[in-house]
């Protein structure tokens, strides 16, 4: 019975008489019945988990990342200051790559195209049991595409490209403190990148649909498609060219005077627009991660407060004129350079016996200015300084703006009035000084400084356009005109700011030299040299403030900062094509008035 032959014989015997066709039909029926039952079970049975699983396998949702908006400068043909680029991350499967026969060829190709040593490439691929490793991130497309051609031509398996986005700053360190940078998480971390992060970021899009068994999208089954909204473009008021003049002048000053730091701001005094804002030392925006000295990232124009020294004297005088306490001809005894008041001695840099108010500002007499302030009194001086914007933020669209230090009136001692009037015991930012000078230049109107000219969507539709904002009017137009006249004398022969002169233009301004405060008093060796001014003096267009920290060996504003002002102003007026207001030697029809 156990033999196969016997078994077949037994079956034949049993099936004898039964139609073979009938058996086949039964078998087919059973098979189809089973399939049918399975279908009914799959479709109608309690199988939600499996249904969900099947749907999950075929459905997909892909997030479409928006590109961050560009940052452009405000010149007539806007230049790109920041742009997001589609780049590639070069990835590898070390397990697959090390098992292949052409590993060394792969290493050679990667090394050659990615400008890495072969040792570095091998180091990146050292975990041969892993299935993923970055070889190099953020590789520009021209390189990655050429690399990919080589990889495919040589049939190398285990290397692939991943799409990535890189924020690129073509200007490297130019305007780095204003533009700012985006961190690895894609969040703006300094400058305009930080303050306008939400506008620049854009809105993510989404694609929903179905995939086939090979994970390829079935285009006809795309159920939802929302394109990403690219981030808005931000157009700054900065002008690339003026920014360059300013930065170059600061670099020269840093080298010439072995200064610790230097910063400057150029403002259009009629509107408050910032045309240039530079701070030295600076950093490269494309390599911000490699920067170890965090002080390089400080925008000193608005984040560093310093004692302004004599550059604050115009405020004292303007307030005294407003109060009607003095006229330009009023004479003051300047005590031959040394005045003992309330137990302390106040000195002038050069001794003078008697000076008019006009000459007090021209010669920068501390004693004369202090006496004028004492005539005015604490309360009026304090109120006037507040009206000029000191001790409060100016409201520029940049992070980390300082308030400055203007002590509360209750905290003023008997000496404060005489010292604050000459720029001691008060701390300001260069931006506040620019605001003050612009107010004098602009008939007394204090304007809000701004760096964002406009914001436009990626397709060019305007979303925001900046307009000048008046913060206040600390002095009237007559006093402002008088101050312009007096400040223009500072750069004339006999004044302290002769080195700030610009050929063809009358320059108004004020020099400042302040000892740096140290614990217990003032340093005898460390100074802040500054110059704040505007031009043309009669019809002002631009205000420039320059501050140089700890210059050596010369340390006065007139010697150190005024030439920097002149260097920036000289090139800026030419670039802006401002018409000379003064006769120019050798010019045909020099300074002929325009019809």
């Amino acid at each position, binding site marked *: 019975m156990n033999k196969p032959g016997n078994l077949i014989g037994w079956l034949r015997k049993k099936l004898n008489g039964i139609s073979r066709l009938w058996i086949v039909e039964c078998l087919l029926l059973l098979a189809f019945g089973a399939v049918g039952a399975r279908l009914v079970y799959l479709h109608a049975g309690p199988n939600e988990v499996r249904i969900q699983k099947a749907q999950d396998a075929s459905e997909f949702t892909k997030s479409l990342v928006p590109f961050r908006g560009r940052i452009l400068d405000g010149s007539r043909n806007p230049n790109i200051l920041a*742009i997001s*680029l*589609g780049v590639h991350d070069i990835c590898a499967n070390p397990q697959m790559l090390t098992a292949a026969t052409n590993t060394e060829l792969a290493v050679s190709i990667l090394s050659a195209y990615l400008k890495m040593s072969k040792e570095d490439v091998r180091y990146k691929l050292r975990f041969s049991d892993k299935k993923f490793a970055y070889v190099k991130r953020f590789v520009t*497309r021209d390189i990655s595409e050429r690399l990919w051609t080589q990889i495919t031509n040589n049939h190398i398996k285990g290397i692939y490209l991943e799409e990535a986005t890189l924020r690129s700053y073509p200007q490297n360190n130019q305007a780095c403190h204003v533009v700012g940078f985006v961190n690895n998480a894609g969040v703006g971390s300094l400058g305009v990148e930080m303050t306008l992060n939400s506008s620049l970021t854009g809105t993510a899009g989404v694609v929903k649909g179905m995939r086939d068994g090979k994970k390829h999208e079935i285009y006809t089954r795309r159920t939802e498609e929302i394109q990403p909204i690219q981030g808005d473009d931000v157009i700054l008021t900065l002008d690339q060219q003026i920014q360059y003049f300013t930065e170059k002048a600061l670099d020269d000053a840093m080298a010439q005077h072995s200064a610790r730091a230097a910063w400057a701001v150029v403002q259009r005094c009629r509107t408050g627009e910032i045309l240039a804002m530079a701070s030295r030392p600076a950093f490269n925006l494309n390599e911000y991660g490699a920067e170890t000295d965090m002080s390089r990232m400080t925008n000193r124009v608005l984040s560093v407060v310093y004692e302004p020294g004599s550059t604050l004297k115009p405020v004292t005088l303007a307030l005294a004129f407003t109060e009607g306490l003095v006229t330009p001809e009023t004479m003051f005894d300047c005590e031959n350079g040394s005045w003992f008041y309330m137990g302390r001695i106040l000195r002038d840099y050069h001794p003078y016996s008697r000076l008019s108010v006009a000459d007090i500002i021209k010669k920068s007499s501390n004693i004369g200015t202090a006496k004028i302030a004492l005539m005015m009194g604490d309360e009026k001086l304090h109120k006037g300084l507040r009206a000029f914007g000191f001790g409060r933020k100016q409201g520029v669209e940049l992070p980390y703006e300082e308030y400055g230090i203007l002590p509360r009136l209750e905290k003023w001692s008997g000496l404060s009035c005489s010292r604050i009037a000459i720029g001691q015991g008060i701390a300001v930012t260069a931006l506040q000084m620019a605001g003050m000078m612009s107010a004098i230049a602009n008939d007394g109107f204090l304007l809000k400084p701004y760096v964002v000219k406009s914001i436009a969507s990626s397709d060019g539709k305007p979303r925001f356009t900046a307009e000048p904002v*008046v*913060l206040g009017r600390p002095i009237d137009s007559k006093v402002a005109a008088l101050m312009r006249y007096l400040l223009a004398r500072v750069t004339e022969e006999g004044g302290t700011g002769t080195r700030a002169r610009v050929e063809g233009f009358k320059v108004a301004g004020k020099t400042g030299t302040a000892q740096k405060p140290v614990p217990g008093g003032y340093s005898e060796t460390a100074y802040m040299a500054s110059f704040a001014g505007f031009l043309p003096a009669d019809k002002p267009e631009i205000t420039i403030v320059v501050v140089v920290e700890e210059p050596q060996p010369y340390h006065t504003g007139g010697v150190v900062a005024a030439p920097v002002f002149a260097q920036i102003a000289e*090139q800026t007026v030419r670039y802006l094509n401002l018409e000379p207001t003064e006769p120019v030697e050798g010019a045909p029809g020099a300074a002929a008035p325009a019809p």
Partner: protein
Amino acid sequence: MARVNRKKNTADQQIIPPRLILTVLTVIGVGMGYLGIRSRCEQLGSEIKKLESSCEINQRRLENEESKWAGLMTPRSIEEALTRHGLNLTWPRRGQVVRIYDSRANDLALVDMKDAVRFAELERVALNE
């Protein structure tokens, strides 16, 4: 007795109603049309996807080139290039600049200042007077 030819059908047996033929042909036609359109849709979808992808790649390339161009056009780069080619450019001396005035000269020369002047001439509320 002659044998009956079973293969030879009667005329009645061969007749298929024309309406049925028409219906079947219509169904087949519609089916073929559907398949054709569906295939065309798939093909177009695939082409659209390719074009989308190509458009995106070109867009990325354009941005890369724009970035490179912006880098080349910085004042520092231009100055370096001029130095490299031995070109020492300076501003013209004031005396070398000739200004010609006409009715539009001021507007053209000070086009950037136009807004500034307009704003300066605005009647504004003095806040801290």
